[in-house]
């Protein structure tokens, strides 16, 4: 839980960099624009999380999962984020799988790993 209100703020410098990265090089970013965008991003996280929680409750899950975030983004019409996030999720899964098959060595087959993986993400 956040103890202070500042805990819900994002770091100014990072936000500034992200904004600059999205705009042509010569464009200045007003301080009030930056702080508004930063606050907007915090509220966005609250907004999406709240919807994602509803998604997880639909199936009685107690852990918020990656697919819940995607479902929430779709529900709230931020469809353009879905594709890059899905790609990221896939990357994570593959990385996890590699790690696991390395750990389990010769005992388990790749196929078994895949099943375990799916159970985990469906939690």
């Amino acid at each position, binding site marked *: 839980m956040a103890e202070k209100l500042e*805990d819900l703020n994002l*770091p100014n410098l990072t936000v500034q960099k992200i*904004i600059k990265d999205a705009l042509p090089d010569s464009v200045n970013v007003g301080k009030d624009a930056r702080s508004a965008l930063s606050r907007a991003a915090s509220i966005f996280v609250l907004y999406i*999380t709240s919807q994602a929680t509803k998604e997880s409750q639909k199936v009685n899950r107690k852990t918020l999962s990656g697919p819940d975030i995607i479902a929430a983004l779709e529900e709230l019409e931020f469809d353009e984020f879905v594709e890059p996030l899905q790609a990221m999720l896939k990357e994570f899964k593959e990385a996890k799988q590699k790690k696991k098959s390395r750990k389990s060595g010769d005992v388990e087959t790749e196929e078994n790993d895949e099943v375990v993986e799916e159970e985990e993400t469906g939690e």
Partner: protein
Amino acid sequence: MSTKPWGALPVYRIMTIMKSSSEAENIGKDSSLMMTKAAELFIKMLSREGYKLANGGRSLEYKHVAEVVQRDERYEFLRDIMPKKITYAEYKKMQGIQENRDESETEDDDESDSGTSSGSSQ
């Protein structure tokens, strides 16, 4: 810029924000990483959309971002924190309109030096 797949924002901070608005017992690691990325994509999208309203100007200002939020339905959740700012001249004009509803006279004395184009000169 950061080369991490979830971008430059701090995951732990995003996780804190998520915890404050979720009744879920656990926030899965994947979901916090994805939300971190989503927040970055969100800032970029809103910045670009705001800058479109700057008409190729040299800076992105609060009013551009606020305008996007007012125009697009899916940003409705931000309207309370991002009210549209108006200039004092515009405010006076609004007051004038309210007070002199029946009179055809327009007030443009105060607008000449404010830098806002109200379109009602002369």
